[in-house]
Every structure is written in structure tokens, then in C-alpha cells.
């Protein structure tokens, strides 16, 4: 197991190294540099030139890449051109918001998706199945910004159930222990803060959950259908095992393997999906910060974000592999 972990961790190096080159070249190729984004429209060519120099953009490209790589290796993602603060610090400040949102979205997706997919498979061809398949298709097809718009019109403006923006109500006082609002509230006993944070998480959580939810429903349904046809399930039923035992030990456990893989990949994609969701809900996480960075050509922020996402994907894949071995003894034996 240890060897497996070490090997997988070492695989990170070429993956991230290759990615850093691709990323660097791509960013260099983008037309319209930060000197246009950072200075007002009327800045003179001299001012733009001075800005390019002060940002180190006049150096040969190889020098720029090596500087970039050296900094990354030192754990320095550079300084945001917009805020003048270290990118890593900006990410860490905003990470708790994005983490809470992603966890909410995944919790919604898994807690609704798994049972729904399972029930759809059990009642194949029924109304529930039809609704689950149709609904998940709709979930995949609906753009997040449109879903966000509908959610806000119905639940925020119409029914007044949930706030339409932000992470906490403006001016709400709270004891700040860490950036994790819900956890902090639970630790300090400020339940009003917890409740306020949960209300603010609801709509963006649902919007962000839409795609993973749809994928999980479909994956679970397909996987359960496949397992239900297996001989060992029929045998288990035939030998008179209790229905719930057949469902949990034989059907769900076997059907879970592909679903867990997709949950892993979907968790990685949540951070990328947060860019749009957070910006339409003014949810102050990494996503909305990156959204602004894309408009202002904030290279260090974009580079850092993509590297972080890539590292997360690799890490999550590692976790998925480990969870395989827990779910499937055959993988462990190998």
C-alpha cells in the first residue's frame, strides 16, 4: 500500500511539470497583456511599456518560465496583479468559502443522487425512473447561470426563502476562528451565524450540485441495473437472503465502484464549476476571485488556480484509488 502511495505521489511531478509548461505557453499566447487590463483606458503607451517592464514581461520567455517554475517549487504562486497580495494567501483566504460550497453541493448531489439512481433502477420504466432520467438530462443540459437565475427568481425574489447573494448577511457579527463559517459557528455556539450561512449556501449549493447530481443519478442507475442482472444477485435472492442484505451487500457495494470514480472526478470539477456559480451568487470564494482574474488578465492568479485544480484532480484520483481497495477486495489483493 505504501509503495502504491509513493508511486502515485511521484506521478504528480511529471503531470504537474508538463501542465506548467502548457499553462505558461498558453498564457503567453493570450493576446492583450495585463498592461491593458491593469491601467485605465487612457494610459499612454509609455505607461503601458513601463508596466510591462515592471511586471517582468520584457524578459526572454525562457527566463520568465524558469522564474515561474522556481517560484512554484518554492510554494510561491506569485502575487496577484489585481490586489498586490500573494496568490496563495488570496486562495487560502477564499478557500473556506469554496470548500463549504463544494461540500454542500456534493452532499446534495450524493444524498439525493444515490437513492434516486437506485430507486430509478429498481423501478425501471416507471414514473420515478422516467422523471429521474429526464431530470438528470435536464440537469446536465441546463447552464449554471440560467439555473441560478431561475432559482433566484423563484426562491429568493418570489418566495423570499433564501438570500440571492453573498455568504453571510451583511454586517452579521461573528467570532472568527477560521474562515470556515459553519464550523466556527458550531464551535462558538453562534447558531444564528450557522443558520445564516446555511441559508446562503442553499441556492448556490443546488446550482453547483446540478451537474454532479445528474451524473450520479445516471451512473448509479446504470450501474445498479447492470448488477441486478448478475447471477450472484439472483443466487442471493434465491437462497432467501433478506432483501436489505442483498441490496446493500451485493447490489450497492458492487454498483458503487464506477460511481465512486465519477464522484471523485466530479469533486475535482466542482472547484472549476465554482467559478461561474460563485460569480452569479456573489459568493466570495476562489471561484468569484478567478472570475474577476479572467477579465483582468491576472496571470499569476489564473496560473495558480489551474495548478491547484490539477493538483486536486491528481489527489482526488489517488483517494479514489484508495477507496477502490476498501470497496473491492479484489483490488486490494492485486
Amino acid at each position, binding site marked *: 500500500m505504501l509503495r502504491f502511495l509513493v508511486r502515485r505521489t511521484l506521478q504528480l511531478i511529471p503531470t504537474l511539470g508538463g501542465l506548467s509548461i502548457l499553462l505558461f505557453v498558453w498564457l503567453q499566447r493570450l493576446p492583450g497583456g495585463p498592461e491593458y487590463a491593469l491601467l485605465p483606458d487612457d494610459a499612454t503607451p509609455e505607461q503601458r511599456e513601463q508596466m510591462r517592464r*515592471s511586471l517582468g514581461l520584457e524578459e526572454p520567455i525562457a527566463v520568465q518560465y524558469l522564474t515561474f517554475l522556481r517560484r512554484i517549487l518554492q510554494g510561491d504562486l*506569485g502575487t496577484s496583479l489585481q490586489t498586490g497580495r500573494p496568490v496563495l494567501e488570496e486562495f487560502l*483566504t477564499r478557500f473556506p468559502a469554496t470548500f463549504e460550497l463544494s461540500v454542500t453541493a456534493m452532499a446534495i448531489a450524493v444524498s439525493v443522487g444515490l437513492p434516486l439512481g437506485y430507486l430509478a433502477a429498481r423501478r425501471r420504466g416507471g414514473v420515478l425512473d422516467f422523471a429521474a432520467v429526464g431530470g438528470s438530462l435536464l440537469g446536465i443540459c441546463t447552464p449554471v447561470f440560467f439555473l441560478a437565475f431561475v432559482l433566484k427568481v423563484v426562491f429568493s425574489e418570489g418566495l423570499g426563502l433564501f438570500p440571492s447573494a453573498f455568504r453571510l448577511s451583511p454586517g452579521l457579527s461573528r467570532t472568527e476562528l477560521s474562515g470556515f463559517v459553519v464550523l466556527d459557528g458550531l464551535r462558538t455556539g453562534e447558531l444564528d451565524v450557522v443558520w445564516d450561512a446555511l441559508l446562503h449556501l442553499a441556492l448556490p449549493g443546488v446550482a453547483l450540485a446540478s451537474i454532479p447530481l445528474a451524473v450520479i443519478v445516471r451512473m448509479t442507475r446504470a450501474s445498479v441495473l447492470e448488477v441486478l442482472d448478475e447471477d450472484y444477485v439472483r443466487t442471493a435472492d434465491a437462497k432467501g437472503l433478506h432483501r436489505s442484505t442483498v441490496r446493500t451487500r451485493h447490489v450497492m457495494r458492487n454498483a458503487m465502484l464506477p460511481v465512486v470514480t465519477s464522484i471523485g472526478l466530479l469533486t475535482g470539477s466542482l472547484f472549476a464549476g465554482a467559478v461561474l456559480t460563485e460569480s452569479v451568487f456573489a459568493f466570495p470564494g476562489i471561484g468569484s476571485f478567478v472570475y474577476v482574474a479572467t477579465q483582468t488578465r491576472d496571470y499569476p492568479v489564473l496560473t495558480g488556480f489551474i495548478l491547484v485544480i490539477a493538483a486536486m484532480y491528481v489527489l482526488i484520483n489517488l483517494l479514489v484509488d484508495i477507496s477502490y481497495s476498501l470497496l473491492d477486495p479484489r483490488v486490494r489483493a492485486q
Partner: protein
Amino acid sequence: MFTKPSRKLLAPLAAAASLTLLATACAESERDEGGQEAPFVFGSAGDIKSLDPFLANDGETFRYSRQVFQTLLEHESGGSEIVGGLAEDWEQSEDGTVWTFHLRDGVVFHDGDELDAEAVCANFDRWHNLSGPWQSSNNSYYWQAIFGGFAENEDEALPESRYVSCEATDELTAVITITEYSSIFPGGFSLAAFGIMSPSTLEAIADAEITGEEGNYSLPDYTRTPGTVAGTGPFTVEEWNRDQAEVTLKRFDDYWGDTAGFETMILRAIPDENARRQALEAGDIHGYDLVAPADVEPLVEAGFQVPTRDVFNVLYLAYQQETNEALAELEVRQALAHAVDRQRIVDTILPEGGEVATQFHPDTLDGWSPDVTTYEYDPERAEELLEEAGHADLTIDFCYPTEVTRPYMPAPRDIFDVISADLEAVGVTVEAKSYEWTEYIGRTDSGECSLYLLGWTGDYNDAYNFIGTWFAVQNDAWGMDEPELFDAMAEASSNPDQEERIAAYQELNEQIMEILPGLPISSSPPSIAFAANVEPPAVSPLTQENFAEGSWKE
């Protein structure tokens, strides 16, 4: 086949329904806002960059800083005339190089320091003596735009400093000397970047450094820690919660003027335009800026207040004379001007209050001339002119920006469509090119587009702030070479006599519209929205609202 919903399925549904009911009850009690003590929440388009406005060059930082810091001069409430700010009145020497400011008596800073001439001079001297990374244009943009360079320039590209000295001739008189007059004065003294900070603040930040190596600068701590910076404005900075992108301002009870109507004002960033509107509709915020023209009417119908500012911007269609040789011919430029139905753009795309522009700045600025050559919509005349010039089959590339709205250009694609259709109607073949904003600015700046849409919102009330931006020197954006115009422009700009300068601007406007380097299209009033229970501040054509004037309705 219908199956009866099982009890197991119904149980969680029932639980969800009761939770929703609970949520409704709680949510409603929290929404019961609008009372005297409730914070006024304003949805801004982005978070602020720095608590010290000197380091900024963006509207959102300045929106915050105008509430907290004050400048020597400012613009009248709701207008564009320059009036006294911290200086009650001021005078300039005949040659425009010596500016004497008579400061208000009894002004105190948020930290208890008193305003005097020494404090004002200490601020100017600090800016003038900045060194190292402070001299990067990103960290001192407006100082460089107004005063050029520093006491000791560290970059050869920086111009000599226009600033000579600031002397406190008595307790309340500050005399600022500059090397030569330029029309950027006195407007330059009103820029939010030059907000005056208290002597204690200056002492505390004297050693603050922008750290890091080239291209990787890091701003000093004081720029984000409330409690260090103190101004004289109607609000103090209580908190800048960066992880919520939220700035909380508190009423300053010892303010020298009328104290703020709101006890607490919160600026909260909502970068997405639709999200801002929905947050106002949902009651999460009480006001926001940069309202899309299409949203104005629905918001008013829904009971919101959407006051319209006076116009202080201009949108134009630029002709790049080097990129497309045909544009170097006056007849062709005139033909294109006659071909475009600008009234249709104003009527169908711009918000109410928009108007067709006859010259390169709005009539709210002194120097606007009623006698410029005008170019009426006349497609037949356009065809004739093209025929005469031998360009009846003209093909031209036309650039427009995507994914952006500017106060002067609410819907670039729609505006492009109208103009493009008009040009095609007179026989011009248009090659459409669209670019994302930053790329667009780069390409148009370097002369890669023959026709393109761009505009400008003024910083202060001087015509040179508009026409000088484009037509002061030969540049790639326009590709025209008119030495006479450039000379006349320089002469007007350096004339310290205001009346003569205004007369010169009028002549320049007439001259420019004869040359017709591009077609001024329209001026568009940017809108700002407020909830029904808010008494809004006077709206400013320069988007410089003083939120202390606002209050909750009784």
C-alpha cells in the same frame, strides 16, 4: 405504470417541507430591515484594491475612498463644477504655476488630528518623494498622470515631475507650486487618489514599503488593515473583510459638514451585473451602480428608484487612417458619418436621457461648441461622397468588443449591428471583428482596426480631459497626422486663463469636426439604482456620489 409513493419516500419529503417552513419564518424575520439602524448595503462591481486610494486607479476603490478621504477640491454635489473640498477656496497665479489653497477651519481627522496646511503639504511631499516600486505606474497611476514623475525618478521613461513644492504659509494656507501650467489643473487636485490622510497616519506608514521583486510586488499591510488610515470624510473605515469582499463604513460624528444619514454603510462586491439586480430585487442590497439600460424600466416599474445621471461621457466610431488608406480621404470619412443613423442608436439602445453627440465631448463641459460642422443622417449623400472619392465599393474592417459594457457603451454588439447595417446600406462591405475587452484595447491602441467603437468618461470638468486624450499627439490609435491641430491643442492646454482656454477649446472642437478623425456617436447617462426605502444621495455625472447625503426614508 404508476407506483404508489412509499412511506419511506414521503418521510424525507415531509421533513424537507417542514425545514422549508422553518426557513421561511427565519428568513422573513431577518429581512425585516429598513429601520433607522439597519446598515445601508451597496452592491459594488468589485472589491476595493487598497485602503489607501493613492495606490488605486479603479472606480470601486475610489467609491469607497470618497466617503472616507477628502481632497483639496471636489466636484459640486450632483454636478461637474469644481468647488472647494478641504480648501474652502483657492486661487492660482497668473501663469498658473502657484496654487494657493485656503483650508477649512475646524476640520478633524478620524484619529483626532486637526487639519492644517502642514498636514496637506506632508501628503503631497510624501507622494512626490516616493521611490522604488511605488514609482511603478500600477502603484502611482494618478500621480504620474497629473504630476508626471517624482523627486528622484528611478526609471528613465518617467517624465520630470511637475510638482515643485508645497509650503504652509500659515496654519490654514497651503501653497503648491508646479513647474508649468496645464489644463489638468485645478481638476487634478480633485482626484480621489489624492485624498488627504492625517499626520499620525503618515507617521505610521512612513516606513511602509511595497515589497517583492519586479513583477511580484506585495502591498504593505496598512493598505488592508483598518485603523491605520484616517481621513476627514463623513465615514470612517470600520472593517475590510476581504474573504467576504465587504467594506464596512461607520458614520463619523465629528465630521465638519452634515453628518452622514446612514449610521453604517456596507460596500459588498457583486461582480456579475444580473446578480446585482437580483440582489436588489431580493432585498439583499439597497442599491447598486452600472444598471444595464434594459433593466432601468423593469426596476422602476417594480418600485425601485433609478435616478439618471447627467451625461459625462462620449462614445465614438474611430477611423484609423493608416490601416485603411481610404479613410485618409476626407470624403470617405464624411460619407461614413452621413451613413450612420445615430439617432436610432440613441432611441433603441441607450437609456432614457441619451443624446446624439455632435463633438468629442458632451455639452455638460465648458468648451462645447454650438457651431461645429454636423453630419446629418443622409444615406444618399453618403453614397454620392463615396462615388466622388472613387470608393463606391469600399471594404472595411470594423472591430467591436465582446463581453463588456461600459457606461458610454451599454451594448457594444447592438451598436455595432446598427452601424454595420447602415454602412452596408450605402454599399460598404463590412468585415466584422470582435475581441474580448483587454485584447480589444490592445488592438485598437496599436492601430490594428480600421473602424472601432470606443469612448471615455471624464475624470474632471475640462474639455482637454476628453479631446486631449485622443488628439494631442500623433498616435497609432487614430493614425492621423495633423501637426496644426496638435500644436493648437498644446497651446490651449497650457493657457492658464480659463476664459481664453474655453474659447480655444470651442475652436478646437470646430477644427476637429472639420477634420473628422472619427464620428462622435452619443453620450449616455449611466444609471444607479436604489431600494424604495432609501433617500438616495444626489447622483453625480462623474459617478462621484457622496453617500453621506443618503438616508433611510422616514
